[in-house]
């Protein structure tokens, strides 16, 4: 199944897909005007600040081929997603483009990667590693302590980026960047709304390709393409499959979603950055920009790494209702199983709603045993549908 012909015929989709599949080329295009590029590792790097400085924020993506550096330097306890991201930095493949690398406190492993990379840079000076920075937001709690700290981190990050770019970042420039990002996020949300509910018209893999592809385009152009795509998607045929909310290890490629689609499951939303979580809420345009940027991190959908069990036990069922999902899929890479500490409390709520959960553990990236997984997906789709 996967991409349908109506989708492939769309000019907007083709462009997004091209960027998704040829990230290097897309980034090279962005750099044409000679702007510096700041790669971001983690969900919570304030890209508006990078934009306001006249630099290009680029989402770091994992290497899916062999990962010799990850195998050499990382613990076996680091799951596949992290290994891929680390490899992209270390392989040097993007060394000519990666002027800066900013990591955010979105997961414990990212903090460790920051320490590892900093130490490698320090002890192996001949390696071509970029300038490495860390944004240490407090994301788990949303009290005044975190809000104060996050504002301070934002201001410090602004100062750092000013040094990098050699120019002052004005409030006007920040407000403009916020506006551009908000419009982009609004377009993404409008597009994603066509994934939801009984009339769902977009496959998970199509959505992932379009959303993640747009990360590698100029924001204004991306907004335009996503708007066009949403318009076209209104007339795409409905997707007839089990509608699920996806959580667990982030998917950077469409591989897993496609396998689900081939077996009767459609991911209609996910709490992941490569997907709906990126655009989950806007930045307030009515308050001073630094304050607005840091406050947005208090309003986001709680991620599984940085949300409390209690919050997630409330938000996941709410989100399932909101989007009209029929089931929850928790898909975990090996050594990336912290989600299991969330699940039992969510299950209590979901049981009340009659929502079933499929839990997949011990996965790799790229997938190792597709056939076995296909059977699990198909059986789950059948059980839930049959139960209906």
């Amino acid at each position, binding site marked *: 199944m996967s991409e349908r012909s109506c989708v492939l015929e769309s000019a907007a989709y083709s462009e997004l897909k091209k960027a998704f599949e040829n990230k290097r080329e897309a980034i090279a295009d962005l750099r044409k005007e000679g702007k510096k590029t700041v790669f971001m590792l983690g969900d919570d790097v304030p890209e508006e600040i990078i934009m306001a400085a006249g630099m290009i924020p680029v989402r770091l993506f994992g290497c899916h081929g062999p990962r010799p550096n990850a195998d*050499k*330097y*990382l*613990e*076996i*306890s*680091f*799951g596949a997603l992290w290994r891929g991201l680390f490899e992209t930095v270390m392989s040097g493949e993007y060394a000519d483009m990666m002027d800066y690398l900013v990591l955010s*406190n979105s*997961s*414990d*492993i990212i*903090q*460790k990667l*920051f*320490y*590892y990379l*900093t*130490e490698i840079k*320090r*002890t192996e000076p001949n390696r071509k590693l970029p300038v490495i920075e*860390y944004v*240490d937001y*407090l994301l*788990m*709690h949303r009290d005044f*302590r*975190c809000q104060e*700290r996050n504002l301070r981190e934002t201001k410090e990050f602004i100062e750092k980026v000013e040094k990098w770019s050699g120019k002052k970042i004005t409030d006007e420039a920040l407000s403009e960047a916020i506006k551009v990002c908000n419009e982009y996020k609004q377009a993404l949300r409008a597009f994603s709304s066509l994934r939801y509910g009984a009339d769902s018209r977009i496959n998970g893999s199509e959505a992932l390709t379009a959303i993640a592809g747009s990360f590698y385009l100029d924001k204004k152009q991306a907004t335009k393409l996503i708007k066009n795509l949403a318009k076209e998607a209104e007339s795409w045929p409905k997707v007839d499959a089990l509608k699920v909310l996806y959580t667990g290890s982030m998917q950077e490629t469409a591989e897993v979603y496609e396998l689900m689609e081939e077996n009767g499951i459609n991911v209609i939303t996910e709490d992941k950055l490569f997907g709906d979580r990126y655009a989950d809420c806007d930045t307030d345009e009515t308050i001073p920009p630094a304050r607005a940027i840091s406050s947005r991190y208090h309003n986001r959908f709680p991620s*599984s*790494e*940085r949300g*409390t*069990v*209690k919050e997630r036990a409330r938000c996941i069922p709410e989100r399932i209702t909101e989007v009209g999902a029929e089931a929850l899929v928790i898909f975990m890479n090996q*050594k*990336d*199983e*912290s989600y*299991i*500490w*969330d*699940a*039992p*409390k969510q*299950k209590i709520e979901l049981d009340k709603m009659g929502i079933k959960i499929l839990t997949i553990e011990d996965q790799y990236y790229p997938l190792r045993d597709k056939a076995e997984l296909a059977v699990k997906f198909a059986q789950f789709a059948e059980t839930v549908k049959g139960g209906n």
Partner: protein
Amino acid sequence: MAEEKNYETRSVKKLNTPKLTGAYQKEWFMGLRARIEAGEPFAFVGANTPMEILQAMDIPFVVNQWWTAICAAKQMGPRFYDLLEQAGYRNDICSYCAAAYACSLDNKREEGPWGGLPNPTLLINAESCSSGMKIEELMTESFGADSFRIHHYHQDVITENWWEKSLYDWEELVGKKRIDFYENELRLLISFLENKTGRKLDMNRLVETLNNVNEQEGYFRKTRDIIAKTVPAPVTVTDTVNAVMQSQWHRGTRWGVEMAKSLYEEVKDLAERSVAAVPNEKIRILWIGRGLWFNLAFYQHFEEKFGAAFIWTMYLGLAADGYLRYNVEENPIRSLASRFSFLEDILHVPPFNNQWFVKEAINNQIDGVVFLVPENCMNNGDFSYNIIRSLEEAGFPVCVLRADPADAKKWSQENMVAAVEDLIENRILPKKNGR
């Protein structure tokens, strides 16, 4: 050839101090129970929290990891894992950290060691990994306690040879920004405790407590130094680990000081009388990672077969180097913030950890290193590559064991023995003999 020996779970008791500290555990715990039953507040705290504050406020508390070790020693593991499984959790990951949560789920808690853990009214934790924080949240709910979590701020200052700065230049070591942050967190914690318990922190008591800590850790430092310079070593890790840890959990009390002093005097006496822990000591081993609580006799096999003495673990090492902070009076809370915020870095953040291990390996005249990497911890990330590289480059061969130090069930004695034997026979001995 391999002597067939039965490695029962038992520890060697050569010194008197471990007997004193061991006996005190139960006595102290029963006293604590009585206080709690009489209506006093009861805090259950993570090992990485500044318990000196609770000590100074005279709030009864138990350290999570201490309790887990007690339960592990009483072979409570299987019971824990069943409880987790029944509650819908996996029982094969995070076992060490989840033990106390399992305990909170136990509706027959009184069957636990020494009448079981009383119900905590306060939970205090420092931000750890995602799973750890979720486990603590679940535990807080399950115990029905009030909780305070100390937030985290990453290490952003790199200092080479940190141990040269920690005693006096601790402000510079941690960095102003970070120490400001933690000082504020500790002040909030104190307010929280004052609020919840109605007790007040007397700053004079805090200074006294911190001075006690310095005195206590000073004895540990001297003990470590004696072991480091004495060949053959007067004691091994199995002799000292319990005494060190048991008194560390009572850090800042006069009892803690007395026990550290007593251990020091005993070790000093043994060294002066040239008593050797392993009379045929030929090899000195440094052990990195959590101790094998359930299998202390593991080490004995190598003593007997190779004259290999396991003389160093992080427990005494950290006591000797990690805690001392002088010039406390000026701002006791700030000095505590410096100690507390940096402890984790020593073990987990490069280059603090690898440089320290190398320094300790040199000072302790080490021949080889055994590095236990916990297998079921997703957050295990001390940059072990870097630790191994640093040690090997400095001339110390390293053997890595992958295991779950808390779960006796999963310990493969043969594999682990074979790995350490390989280190000794194929890396340490050829090198020594070639010298």
